[in-house]
């Protein structure tokens, strides 16, 4: 895969936090190819969320090069080349579901008709028909997060950044959301960079899992997830799934010099 085609390209990205002189990320090199589903996994404090924000140009790197969609990360942000989903849905309380989804479309000056057409499609994609006029507080956590995903995908960005989007959900909802996300990923054809600290979630969803170690955050290894697509509930019960989970877990263990508690 040549450099031109990479959706995200990181070259020796380092991040120091001025306060306390903490090195959050050290010499990160990574290429994300189109239509990939990449998970960043590591214990708390490994800088995975910071790395995601550097890709999104929400936090500047101390040094290194960040190229998104073939341009500098800053230009990519100005061009609205990515959508972002946070751990909390971050919906605007004063807007209905439909209006929350329409928010980025308003930014892009889409006219009303085009906006409502697109909102209808997105509501259908995340299966929230009938809830268009509800306010965020009237929805469950899982539904809120679906609105948030719809909002991120509404303007059809080539890249979707997700920062532990299902971290606040219960296990049942989380597994259902995982299935939905895979379906959405396949239907929308976007590239996803996904931050998580659940090994099972990372292996189940991803095409590649990037394992990181803490203090300073470095890439310990990258595991190719060769589970067949499309994935379904049976995937989690396959022999290969457990092998991959074990592989990721061991990489986490070797990288974790501080001996911190590992995520389940």
């Amino acid at each position, binding site marked *: 895969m040549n450099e031109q085609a990479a959706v995200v390209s990181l070259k020796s990205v380092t991040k120091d936090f001025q306060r306390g002189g903490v090195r959050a990320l050290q010499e990160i090199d990574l290429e994300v190819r189109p239509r990939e589903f990449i998970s960043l996994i590591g214990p708390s404090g490994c800088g995975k969320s910071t790395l995601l924000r550097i890709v999104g140009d929400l936090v500047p790197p101390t040094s290194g090069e960040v190229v998104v969609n073939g341009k500098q990360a800053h230009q990519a942000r100005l061009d*609205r080349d990515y959508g972002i989903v946070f751990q909390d849905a*971050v919906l605007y309380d004063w807007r209905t579901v439909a209006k929350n989804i329409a928010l980025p479309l308003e930014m892009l000056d889409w006219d009303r008709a085009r906006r409502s057409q697109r909102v209808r499609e997105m509501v259908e994609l995340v299966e929230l028909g009938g809830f268009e006029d509800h306010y965020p507080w009237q929805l469950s956590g899982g539904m809120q997060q679906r609105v948030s995903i719809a909002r991120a995908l509404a303007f059809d960005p080539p890249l979707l950044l997700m920062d532990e989007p299902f971290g606040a959900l219960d296990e049942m909802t989380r597994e259902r959301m995982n299935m939905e996300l895979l379906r959405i990923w396949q239907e929308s054809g976007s590239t996803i960079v996904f931050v998580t600290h659940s090994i099972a979630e990372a292996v189940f969803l991803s095409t590649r899992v990037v394992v990181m170690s803490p203090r300073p955050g470095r890439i310990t290894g990258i595991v190719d997830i060769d589970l067949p697509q499309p994935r379904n509930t049976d995937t989690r019960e396959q022999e290969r799934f457990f092998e991959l989970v074990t592989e990721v877990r061991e990489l986490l263990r070797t990288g974790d010099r501080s001996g911190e508690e590992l995520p389940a």
Partner: protein
Amino acid sequence: MLRRGLVFAAVLAGLWALWEAYRAFGVAVSLTWPFEVNDRTMPHIHDMIGQLFEPSRRNGPLLIEVLGKAALFTAKEAAVGFALGASVGFLIAVALVHSTLLQRGLLPYIVASQTIPILAIAPMVVVWLGGRGLPGWFSVSVIAAYLTFFPVAINALRGLQSADPRAHELMSSYAASRWTVLWKLRVPASLPYLFSAFKIAATACVVGAIIGELPASIQDGLGGAILNFNQYYASSPESLWATNIIAALLGIAFFLLIVVTEKLVVRRAPEHFV
């Protein structure tokens, strides 16, 4: 709604009963502390209300007509003062939220402005604006605005800063301009704070207008009426009390107007309503 009305009526009746009971007790035992209780110090509430429907002077209109006109006059001053003060307060907050430097430099003076008693400011406002061909009541509005802008500025500032950092990151991810962030995020997020401030300001601007009428020597409003009936307190205490009731009703009316507007404007989770 019916329940609310009943509670309101019950509280009102309770206060009424309390007043009359204390009065009856004071008269019966000839209470002298903290003050002597009699028709002059504590008129019957029904006498105060009755006074409203007596002629204000021999062959003159009823007191309630006189006070009604005065209340409308004061309401105009207060409303203009509110609009002026709320706008200035909001604009100050918008300026401060975009500049830490301004915030550090200006905020202490804004706070200090409120430590100066309004009675010290009022005569100067009247002198400054009186000679400008502006109507006299406008000076009173400016004085009311002086009391209004402060709670609005302080609360609006807090409200404009109240949005979650993630909500701001979302805006950054859209490469939104400051202007867009202001209108699509900061202002809507500030509305509950703004309306809390408006509620304080609504009553403050009425008080400001009434007090402002005194140094402005304006006779047409409630301030003028209070001054007037104060002079005749010995002979007719009920008139002053009746005026106070009207003044209180005006303040309540302003407050309720804000409450109703808030219900119409602010779409929030029910627990966010004050």
